[in-house]
Structure formats: C-alpha cells, structure tokens
C-alpha cells in the first residue's frame, strides 16, 4: 500500500487529526488526574514515594474533624453562594434586558468583576474586610450604626459569610451575562402574545420567561456550582482557611495538607473526595439539561 493511499483512508486520517488533541488531553488532564487519584490511595509524602495503602487515607479523613468541617464549609459555601448568584444574576439579566440608557456601558460594567483576576479582587476584599481599616466598618461607624469595628474575617460565621459575599460578587456577572444571552433569544412577539392573552408582568415572567430560560439556567448553574465548589483563590487570599478552619474549603485544606503539610497522600485523598460531589452536580444537570419534549422537532413535519 502506497503512502498516498494510506493518507486517503478516512479512518487513518481521522485518527491522525485526533492525535494532537488526544495527546494534550492525555498529558495535561488524564495523567495529573490519574496521578492525583492514585496518590490518594498511597502514603506518599514530599520526598518519599508512597506505597499503596488502600482506603486508609479516606478512613482517616472521615474521622478528622477539620476535614469534616471543610466538607460542611464547602457545601454551605456552594449552596448559599449559588442561590444568591442565581437570584442576583437573573435579576441583573432582566434589568439589562430592558431598554436602558447607556445599555452597552452598563453591560460592560457588570462584567468587570469577572474580568479582574480573582487574586486581585480578593485583595480588594481583604482591605474591605480588614479589622482596622475596613471602609465598611468606617462607613457604618460614621453613620452611627455600630460602636466598634466589625471583625469580618476574625469571627468564624462572619468570615464564612464575608467570603461567600466576595464569591457572590465575583460570580454574579457570569450568571447575569449568560442569562442575558438566553433572554435575548426569546422572541418579543411571545411577550406581545402574552400581553394580549391578558398576562401581567409577573405572569409573563412566570409563564414565558422562566420556562424558556430553564435550559440555559441548568447550564449556567452547573458551571457556577462547579466553580464555587472547587474555589481556592478567594479563600486562600482572604483567610487561608481561618479563623479556626472556619472557612477552609476542601480545595484549600487539600492544598494545605498536601503541599504545606507535605502529606501528599492525604491531600490527594481529600481532593479525590470532591469528585463524587462534582459528578453528582454534573449528573443532576445532565438530566436537567436533557432536551425537553417541547424543544424536540416532530416526526410529523
């Protein structure tokens, strides 16, 4: 078989074209993921290759109060932040979808928190939340609403809520802009038809906007939940997991145990423990995302 015949074969050619992408995925995605998962089942430490120890790491973590706290923190962080991001994002999207003056400028402004590197905006929040120099505390004090400065990042629950607020601030634009794109695909004549059918503004939203938006809500909220669940930067810059591990998420604790503490196996196990939760979120949205009957074409056309 000649070389040109070899390259004419569709299957051969297809495999060849796939090769670069497959190689990249294999080297940069599959290998680290596989290695990480494998490390979770070993007692590797920095400077010492690990041996297979089965589920010992997971057993240890299950009994470890800090690890359990980090799981609670992560779930709380993800749940509260996602709910707020959804509500605020949808509200912003609806506002931006109206004909406002300076619409283009406003839309660009809304995107800003998304554009700024997280580490930078986290630093800004760090200042806002500072125990002595907080502009928030200063404002409230000047207004006479508080006597002493708020210790935003020093109290466990305040710290949790403060980091969540920063995460919401950062995550809302993504939700808002994506939902705005979804809103713009809804034909205006549907609203006109609804107006003639006697729908109030609220009924238009409930019976037209929301159902038409469900598919895109499913996509954007899946991504939002994944990003929030695996968040690292914000926490690491703001609190490093403190005070008293109150803001440690699984990702930050995993980093602390594995890199700073040197217990690679344990850290990797903690990271691996996140996978089932992420898979659950993806599965949930997969079923939520399945094309609904009304989105499918008919056989009858």
């Amino acid at each position, binding site marked *: 078989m000649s070389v040109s015949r070899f390259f004419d074969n569709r299957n051969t050619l297809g495999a060849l074209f796939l090769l670069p992408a497959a190689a990249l995925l294999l080297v940069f995605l599959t290998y680290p993921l596989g290695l990480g998962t494998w490390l979770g089942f070993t007692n590797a430490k920095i400077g010492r290759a690990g041996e297979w120890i089965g589920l010992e790491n997971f057993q240890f973590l299950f009994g470890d109060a800090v690890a359990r706290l980090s799981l609670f923190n992560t779930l709380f962080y993800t749940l509260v932040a996602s709910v707020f991001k959804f509500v605020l994002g949808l509200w912003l999207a609806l506002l931006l979808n109206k004909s406002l003056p300076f619409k283009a400028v406003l839309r660009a402004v809304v995107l800003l928190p998304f554009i700024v590197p997280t580490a930078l905006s986290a630093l800004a929040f760090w200042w806002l939340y500072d125990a002595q120099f907080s502009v928030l505390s200063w404002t409230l004090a000047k207004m006479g609403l508080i006597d002493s400065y708020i210790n935003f990042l020093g109290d466990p629950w305040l710290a949790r809520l403060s980091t969540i607020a920063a995460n919401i601030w950062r995550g809302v634009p993504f939700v808002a802009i994506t939902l705005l794109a979804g809103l713009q695909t809804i*034909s205006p*004549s*549907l609203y*006109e*038809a*609804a*107006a*003639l*059918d*006697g*729908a109030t503004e609220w*009924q238009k939203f409930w*019976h*037209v906007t929301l*159902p*038409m938006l469900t598919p895109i809500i499913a996509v954007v909220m899946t991504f939002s939940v994944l990003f929030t669940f695996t968040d690292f930067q914000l926490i690491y810059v703001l609190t490093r997991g403190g005070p008293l591990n109150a803001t440690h998420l699984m990702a930050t604790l995993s980093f602390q145990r594995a890199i700073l503490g040197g217990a690679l196996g344990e850290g990797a196990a903690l990271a691996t423990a996140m996978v089932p939760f992420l898979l659950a979120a993806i599965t949930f949205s997969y079923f939520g995302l399945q094309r*609904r*009957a*009304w*989105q*499918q*074409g*008919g*056989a*009858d*056309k």
Partner: protein
Amino acid sequence: MSAVSLRGVRKSFGSTEVVHGVDISIADGEFCVLVGPSGCGKSTLLRMIAGLEEISAGEIAIGARVVNALRPKERDIAMVFQNYALYPHMTVYDNMAFSLKLAGVPKDEAGQRVADASQILGLNDYLQRYPRQLSGGQRQRVAMGRAIVRKPQVFLFDEPLSNLDAKLRVAMRTEIKALHQRLTTTSVYVTHDQIEAMTMADRIVVMNAGRVEQIGSPLGLYDDPANLFVAGFIGSPAMNFLKGRLNGSAVAVGSGISLPVRTGLESGREVLLGVRPEHLAVAADGVPAEVVVVEPTGADTQIFCKLAGTDVTAVVRERHDFRPGESIRLKPQLTYLFDPSSGARLA
C-alpha cells in the same frame, strides 16, 4: 362583536411620523383588509389597535369605548401574529387555553371552549403536541384557535399567511374566510398581498406611505380606482400605464399611435392612460404592438409586448400562436385616465 373606528390616527417614532392621520370605520362583523406595500404603516396601525404601539395622536374606538389608554388585555381583542408567536413550551391545548387560564375561566368551561375551537380547526388529534411538532399550517391553525377561544370583540391578523408556502396559503385563505363567515367576528387583516385582500375582504383599505389611498369593496377598488397608486396596486397582472397627450377623444401615446378614450377633458393636456391587461384585446382594428414574450397558463395567455416604446401586458382568453418579434394589434376595451403629476384619476 364590535365596530372599530380610527379617527385621525397618527404615529411617530421619535421625530419621524410614519402614519399621517388615518380615518377608517370598520362596521360590526366586517372583514376589513389593510393592504399596501412594505413600510406603508399598515402593521403599525394594526399594532396600535391591539395596544402594542402607543397612539401618537387621534383616537381608536372599539365598540363605543375609546381604547387609547387601555392596555392590550383590556381591549378584548385577539391577534394572530405573522410568526404565530405560539408558546414553544406549551402543548397545543395549553397554548389555546392560556388566556382562559389567566382570566380565571373554570377548567371545564375552558376545556369545552378549546374543544369547540379545535373541532372547528381540525386540531383534535394534536392537542397534546408541542408547536415544534406541527407543520406550518397546523401552527397557523393553533394561532387562530388561540384567538377563537377568547371570543373577543375583534380579531386582528398580522400577515398570518406570509410564512406559508403558496399552495397552503391559498387553502388557509379560504379557511379563514369560511371561519369568518361562521363566527362573524369583526376582523382586521393586514397583508401586502393584494390577491389576499381581494379574495378575503368585505372592504379593503389601501394604504401607501402612512396614508389611506382608498377604501372600498374589492370589486369597487378594481372597477373604480381613485388614483394611480390604487390602480397600479390592485389587480394582477398590474395595470399598464402609457404616457400620452389628450387629443379630443383619443390619447396620442407616441409615434402616431392614438388610443380612443371617452372623456370630457380639454385637449392638449398630458395624461397617463391606464388599461388593465385583461381589457386589452387582440383585434384587427387595434394599435400595433411588438410581441416580446408569450406566457400561456392554460386558462389564459399573457402577452408581454412593446406598445409605442412602453412595456405592456395583455391577458387574453383565446389561444394565439404569437412569436417573439411578431407585430400584433391590441385594442383597449376599457381605459382610465390619470394626472401624471398628482396621480389623481381624471376619467
């Protein structure tokens, strides 16, 4: 059912006025068609009746009520949109029952009304389908069903057939007309297709550039157009126009060719002579014309030819074996005269 009247209605978008004072009164139970070329303001006018566009000036009344300040849902009207505007996430049944549900009509009664409408429209087998699973004609029927179940005072149609293929359009045309004869609800129908207007309307409003050119029955407009625009717009193929000078009881249209007309106007003035293609007969005592293209359709034959340098069309019932380039003689049976500058009908 209600009469609809428009009195001095104007519409401006910013500083641009697009509808310049329109007066129309539509009788109770009438099927009124607004027809005109794209951008003539007919859809805007319809949307003003519906309450989807604000009325810049003038007054619109449905029945005895002036509706200028009323919201769409308070006007007791139903509209069929060009793109149907069916709710894609609702079944056919829910689409039709939506307005009843919002109005708090009891479930049994709503079900009965939807059943009646779907019976009339032949949609019984499709009630549980989604709009996407329907053909264009079926969607069109659902859109009408949605309007029917409301039992509104007035039906508004915004070019409802323009998304259908030619054959379906003719069928739906008949269906809508039959539906109107059955329900006798006052209807306002917007189209740019003069054939739709002619075949469906009790009365036609011809619009152009934001003004009403003429209002009348289909045959009234055809037989007695008020001006050049209406004469050219109504009728298919369109009326032929020849420039010429009035000379006694004939119009000289150039190179020694004169066409006889009946008129009491003074000689010597410039006129536009209009003659419909179907009023041009092939006759030995006609004026000479050169055949360009012959298009037989079976029932009749369209002859495109040059008469005194102008393109004219003749439609004849009898069959001729004309060749391109051949010289024939055409005789106008019925003519109209228009003022070339104002477009007004002279005779």
